[in-house]
């Protein structure tokens, strides 16, 4: 072998830095640090209405009185919140003439992921020629959506276009003082996505297709709001399987989902942010609050996530099951390698009668990483005849990594049923030898076994996403054994 496979991922993930990010105009940037002035600056830049400024300031004042949570199974040096630039105009990458100028290792990763040539160009900052006219594609999608009354735009755009909807639902699922990072986001959020599906409308496309084409630079404090009106359906996909890098170390996003009567919202994420190098240096700290509320009867919210990135992941996509007969689901694959740390899981809060929830969590740990599942299932007094099934599996590669499970169960009535199953397993030498004997290299064998292990979750992903996610899992674990 001409190259230590351990280095490939590291090199690939660092590759883009060679070409650098740079901010061309200093004036379009808030002064470093956080104060009420910073928040007024952000709000003014975005031409926001007074109520939104007040929402931000209120959150900021609450944040000042809060302390960073320390209960998670995570370790990182203290974050200096005054050393962050909270607003900068969308950063431009240096535009390259052709793919020939892009780091070949990065191209290799793109090819492994099966990303099309045009998209490779876009992702690596090469000027896209007129062969694919993304503007016209965008227009086509927008027209399709508009015809049905679907609103799908950036958060800032929504504030201008449909302020009443934003005002009605912003902070209604994740209050601005919900937790330390939620308060921070509420004060300084940069941009994100807004989606509204009207009554009785079934969104005809996966909103990802659109999203990927328009993947905007949403910054480090992303804010997403999705509203499924009565009897509507939408499948929404966040993120991208390509290696995503950002010089902002701290990310604190909020996603709020509201499902009204008989509505169904399916939210899928594939997250592949820079995990830091092999020694655990650098990498994104990702503190995310994702929560949905099944507000109406017979509504359903489903979270599916594949997490391979970030140095630190702190994330518990949750569902509040308020309407009777409502359904909440959480399917997760979290991979940690090298020195990555993940503390992730889900909360299912059963308020309505006959509500049902499912949690399937598959943790895969390699290298020196630490992977924790943390979940809460709560059956309140009113939530009669409700059910939860939780399954938390851990797969260990090597003997230097750790897997932990912290399930919390609270039941306040006698008719609900809560089930919890947990397993821990390793890839056995017998499995590897069996694969090797069929001509399959150890690296491919690990990819195969890991994908098999995660299949239950991967099959929840929309088709095109699932194929990329499978490849991503293999790449993330390259060099983790042998």
């Amino acid at each position, binding site marked *: 072998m001409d190259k230590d496979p351990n280095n490939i991922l590291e090199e690939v993930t660092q590759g883009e830095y060679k070409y650098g990010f740079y901010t061309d105009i200093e004036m379009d940037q808030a002064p470093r640090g956080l104060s009420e002035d910073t928040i007024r600056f952000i709000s003014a830049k975005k031409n926001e209405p007074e109520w939104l400024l007040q929402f931000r300031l209120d959150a900021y004042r609450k944040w000042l009185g809060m302390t960073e949570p320390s209960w998670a199974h995570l370790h990182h040096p203290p974050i200096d919140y005054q050393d962050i630039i909270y607003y900068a105009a969308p950063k431009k990458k240096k535009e390259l003439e052709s793919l020939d100028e892009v780091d070949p290792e990065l191209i290799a990763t793109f090819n492994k992921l099966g990303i099309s040539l045009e998209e490779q160009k876009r992702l690596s900052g090469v000027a896209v020629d007129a062969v694919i006219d993304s503007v016209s594609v965008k227009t086509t999608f927008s027209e399709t959506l508009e015809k049905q009354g679907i609103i799908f735009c950036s958060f800032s755009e929504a504030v201008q276009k449909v302020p009443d909807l934003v005002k009605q639902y912003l902070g209604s699922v994740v209050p601005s003082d919900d937790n330390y990072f939620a308060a921070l986001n509420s004060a300084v959020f940069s941009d994100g996505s807004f989606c509204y599906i009207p009554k009785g409308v079934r969104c005809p496309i996966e909103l990802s297709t659109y999203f990927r084409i328009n993947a905007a630079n949403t910054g480090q404090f992303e804010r997403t709001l999705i509203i499924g009106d009565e009897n509507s359906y939408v499948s929404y996909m966040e993120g991208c399987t390509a290696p995503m890098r950002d010089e902002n170390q701290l990310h604190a996003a909020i996603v709020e989902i509201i499902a009204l009567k008989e509505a169904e919202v399916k939210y899928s994420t594939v997250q592949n942010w820079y995990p830091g190098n092999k020694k655990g240096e650098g990498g994104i700290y990702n503190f995310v609050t994702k929560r949905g509320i099944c507000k109406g009867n017979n509504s359903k919210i489903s979270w599916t996530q594949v997490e391979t990135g970030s140095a630190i992941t702190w994330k518990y996509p949750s569902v509040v099951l308020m309407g009777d007969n409502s359904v909440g689901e959480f399917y997760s694959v979290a991979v940690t390698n090298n020195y990555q740390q993940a503390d992730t899981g889900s909360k299912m809060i059963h308020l309505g009668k006959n509500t049902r929830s499912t949690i399937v969590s598959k943790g895969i740990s390699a290298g020196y990483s630490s992977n924790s599942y943390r979940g809460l299932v709560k059956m309140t007094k009113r939530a009669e005849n409700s059910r939860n099934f939780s399954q938390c599996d851990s797969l260990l590669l090597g003997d230097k990594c750790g897997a932990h499970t912290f399930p919390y169960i609270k039941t306040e009535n006698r008719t609900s049923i809560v089930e919890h199953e947990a397993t821990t397993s390793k890839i*056995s030498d*017998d*499995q590897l*030898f*069996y*694969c*090797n*004997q*069929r*001509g*399959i*290299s*150890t690296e*491919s064998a690990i990819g*195969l*076994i890991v*994908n*098999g*292990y*995660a*299949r*239950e979750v991967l099959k929840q992903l929309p088709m095109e996403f699932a194929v990329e996610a499978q490849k991503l899992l293999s790449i993330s674990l390259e060099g983790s054994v042998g």
Partner: protein
Amino acid sequence: MLSIKNLRVSINNKEILKGVNLEVRPGEVHAIMGPNGTGKSTLASVISGREIFTVDEGEILYKGKNLLDMPVEDRASEGIFLGFQYPVEIPGVSITNFMRTAVNEQRKYHGLDPMPANEFLAKMEEKKKMLEIHAKLANRSVNEGFSGGEKKKNEIFQMAMLEPSLAILDETDSGLDIDALKIVASGVNKLRRPDNAFVVITHYQRLLEYIVPDIVHVLFDGRIVRSGGKELAIELEEKGYEWIKAELV
């Protein structure tokens, strides 16, 4: 095709093979018999490259190449197939996916492009039909929840898909009822060609009624103590291994 000379193998400093010699030519079927614990499975493992064993002495040449220098997956791509005595389960990985990966990794080793999907699926169908394998088997996870017979049939199916030049079947008959045994044996017979060879490891003569060997070897206490035609198997069955033991003393 396969030439083993004075092979000495140990595990944890305990010598198991004490100088094995074996020549296998294309088109031949060899049977290796012997009581339990005499090193039959060890021999199969060492040929296929299992790392838990230490080769202390001797050489294994395969098509003129030194096999002991090759990693397990390269040996497989060079055409060596091991039918496992205890096939492992790989949850969540369908047989189709497993086989496609194996076929394409072997093609890659030989500098070929992956097999087109339609060609691959047609090949799967053909081999399933040939071996009378239930269509559903291909969608199940590798060996997961399989009965003993299904596992062994699956090994033969994989052999058919990979078309090895040397197949070593390690106690393929163990745990099989007579019907399963017949299906497995007929699969092997259908795959026999002038340019490939089989080494069938078995404890009982029963399998050899269905797969007729050209040469029978008796492995005892780490050495091949006797070789002969198919009559040797019958003689062994009649007189038992005690006969060999007695002769050696």
